[in-house]
């Protein structure tokens, strides 16, 4: 796809994983609980209730601001964004408007043509509204239930400049951002609905389209790819791309035009009179950041000798990086290859996160590979067996026990030599072909031995052994 003319900017809403909500003491850990059980007068917006700022949220947001190299304003405050919506209990959202927490930062990504900084316009803090649950199917039976468990959960909105050039870059930006937020320990990407993205996209010279309602990492790339194709088709037909807001329909992978009404909202922002302005610039000075993905990547290359590609992959998520560092104790090289190349592939295939792989099992597997007890092929087989057991809710079997049960130990020594001799004896014609200088005959013989030992022989070793035995025949002749 030609990308020179694509301009993309993102607005990302992330739930911060503080224990309590932004303006009250209610717990944010509600996902397994009944609707409306994590509520109080404040997050229900009852008349007379007043917000009290949870300082932890500001601290979390400042960690993000610092990690993204933003400048933090000396003083910031909250504003009311007024609009009517059933799940917005006060009919206004407390957010930050003209004095946000932080402005002008950057985040480096691996772009289409090398590493590049993506500029961050601003970061601000706001409260999540409640959640509407639409019920009924027919027009007459339609009604909506509202769950306020989510109301008041802290969000940060991160707005980028239109610096992204392709859907792939947008996804990479989000992955990098997610990793950064995880490293900062302010965000749990596995919580449902913890990240929501609005994307602005335009083709050079065309109207800007805002795509709202994208709630997954993969969805962003899908929505943007669809939108680029759609806009190109519009232009190809000689029509004009209208400036509008569209919604991403995740299930169908398409965007649909939303009624223009929404764009005409006048939110009538004004400073929230129940909260005092905050002095934040001194506060941010005192915040100490943990090691971030880029720094960890460098360290992996130096400390463990990882390749750039492996280091980038292995530092792409906090849990993954921590997993690797555990396994690297056994053997950094094997650990890197087996984590980045084999394990991640198997996990992705099953839509699993790194949590699915029990580290004790994986470390034993690396041990078996290091001791040359099993072949790579058997290693992959063992990985698959363990992950399938996890998937079926069974207790995963230890690799050594799988090796024993299936007899996967690498064959070698006398056993393999016997097999080689037997194969030579059983296949006089290919042996003759080999001696006549026909190369492919050797491959056939290797295959025959492998068949006999059910793949447990090391291919290199087997090759050498066959040549040796065949050579002996010639010498003796």
């Amino acid at each position: 796809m030609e990308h020179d003319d694509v301009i993309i900017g993102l607005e990302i809403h992330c739930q911060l994983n503080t224990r309590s909500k932004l303006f009250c003491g209610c717990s944010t850990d509600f996902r397994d609980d009944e609707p409306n059980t994590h509520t109080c007068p404040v997050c229900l917006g009852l008349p007379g209730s007043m917000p009290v700022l949870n300082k932890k949220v500001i601290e979390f947001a400042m960690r993000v601001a610092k990690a993204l190299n933003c400048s933090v304003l000396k003083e910031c405050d909250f504003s009311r964004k007024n609009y009517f919506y059933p799940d917005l209990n006060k009919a206004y959202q407390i957010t930050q408007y003209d004095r946000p927490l932080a402005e002008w930062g950057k985040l480096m990504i691996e772009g289409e043509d090398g590493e590049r900084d993506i500029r961050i316009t601003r970061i601000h803090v706001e409260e999540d509204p409640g959640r509407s649950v639409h019920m009924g199917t027919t027009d007459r039976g339609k009604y909506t239930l509202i769950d306020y468990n989510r109301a008041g959960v802290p969000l940060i909105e991160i707005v980028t400049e239109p610096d992204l050039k392709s859907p792939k870059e947008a996804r990479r930006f989000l992955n990098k951002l997610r990793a950064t937020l995880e490293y900062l320990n302010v965000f749990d990407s596995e919580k449902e609905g913890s990240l929501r993205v609005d994307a602005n996209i335009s083709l050079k010279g065309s109207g800007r389209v805002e795509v709202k309602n994208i709630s997954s990492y993969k969805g962003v790339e899908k929505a943007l790819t669809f939108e680029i194709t759609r806009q190109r088709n519009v232009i190809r037909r000689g029509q004009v791309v209208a400036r509008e807001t569209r919604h991403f329909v995740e299930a169908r992978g398409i965007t649909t035009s939303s009624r223009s009404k929404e764009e005409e909202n006048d939110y009538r922002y004004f400073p929230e009179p129940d909260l005092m302005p905050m002095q934040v610039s001194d506060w941010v000075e005192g915040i100490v950041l943990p090691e971030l993905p880029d720094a960890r990547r460098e360290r992996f290359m130096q400390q463990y000798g990882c390749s750039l590609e492996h280091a980038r992959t292995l530092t792409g998520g906090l849990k993954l990086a921590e997993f690797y560092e555990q396994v690297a104790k056994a053997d950094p090289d094997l650990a890197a290859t087996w984590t980045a190349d084999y394990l991640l592939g198997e996990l992705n295939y099953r839509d699993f996160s790194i949590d699915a792989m029990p580290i004790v099992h994986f470390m034993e597997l690396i041990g078996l590979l290091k001791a040359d007890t099993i072949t790579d092929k058997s290693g992959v087989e063992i990985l698959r067996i363990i992950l399938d057991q996890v998937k079926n809710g069974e207790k995963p079997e230890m690799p050594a026990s799988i090796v024993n049960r299936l007899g996967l130990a690498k064959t070698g020594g006398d056993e393999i030599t016997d097999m080689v001799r037997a194969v030579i004896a059983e296949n006089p014609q290919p042996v003759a072909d080999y001696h006549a200088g026909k190369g492919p005959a050797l491959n056939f013989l290797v295959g025959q031995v492998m068949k006999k030992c059910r793949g447990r022989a090391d291919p290199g070793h087997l090759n050498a052994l066959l040549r040796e035995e065949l050579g002996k025949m010639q010498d003796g002749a």
Partner: protein
Amino acid sequence: MAKTLTFTPDDKVHAFITTIPEVSYEDGPLSGVTVAIKDNISTRGIETTCASQILKGYIPPYDAHVVTLLKSAGAAIVGKTNMDEFGMGTTTENSSFGPTLNPCDPGRVPGGSSGGSAAAVAAGYCDMALGSDTGGSIRCPAAFCGIVGLKPTYGRVSRYGLIAYANSLEQIGPMAKDVTGVSRLFSVIAGHDKRDSTSVDRPYIHTPNPSVKGLRIGLPEEFFGKGVDPKVADTVKKAVSVLEQAGAEAVPCSMPSMSHALAAYYVICTSEASSNLARFDGIRYGPGGDLRKSWHEEFSDRRQERFGKEVRRRIILGTFSLAAGYFGRYYQKAQTARQMVRDDFARLFGEVDMIAGPTMPSIAFKLREKSDPLQMYLSDILTVPANLAGVPAISVPCGQVEGMPVGLQLIGRHFEDEKVIDTAFAYEQGAV
């Protein structure tokens, strides 16, 4: 130990929206003292309406901070008092449950918006009452009904549970027959509350002291000039001379920002109100609605039907002031004017210790006398400056005009509520 009393007033002036016939109370500094509460202060288990149809039937599941404090001080909470709907008015005629009458003359209004609270105390139904003061809503009815009412320094009393009208201006405050009563009630409700981020840790531990020796009292010419009934002005000047005899010094002064104060006040309070009242959609609170209609349709119908005319007017004014393209011309300009008022007070309080003037430019209006909203707004001119600046102000009865009470308003420095109370007490003692 829990005790009970019965409360069955012959409420001829319609001071109450809700009364509690059997009241239980505990031991404490206010044990058995009957206290009425304005109906915009949340009371757990007791209907709280703000005198509006849109909140009819709303029973808060929690107590306002001041109510919690009153209960633990042993006060007997006897009922919820009538008011202008959501505090929007100066007469208590804007109640959807009908007006309250002035106990001094049932043909006149009690003032507002805390008219029910003032009338309940003035009529002797209860010992004390809580009001709320956004632009004079405690001091005006105190003046019109001949009782004492204090608007404390902004932040001294928690607003948690006060159903907001204009957050940046309003304070809950005490009302009683005399300064001692106001002081007692204030000592219970003042203090820090972590649930109100604008509240400050300045408890009130004080007994009124009538000494005003050497106190410099500023008399701004604007408080005695155009628009103020000369008979009221004269009465107040006489009251100031009582303080002079007790050793205070009267100093003429001026508050030029007064010319902007009223406009600034109405822009700010309506802006905040338009946002505060948006949550009342006729579905979440009140008698419920027609579920067959769409949410937007039902919502606008109910607001039209259940908000009174003055409330709708102020919501529309506030919505307009905040609208894109008008914000700078109205809301922001009003904030500038507000700062001018604060600066004026700061300057004056460098020269004087206290500012004195009439609470209201006239005596209580006759019922339905003020039908033009602008005329009504103008009568708040002397009370709104204290709200814009957040400084404490008290109204204490200081004589009569045409048989109706007149209030002396005393305005002090931030957090000098004690001095304001002492000065009012000195007048009260000296006038005996």
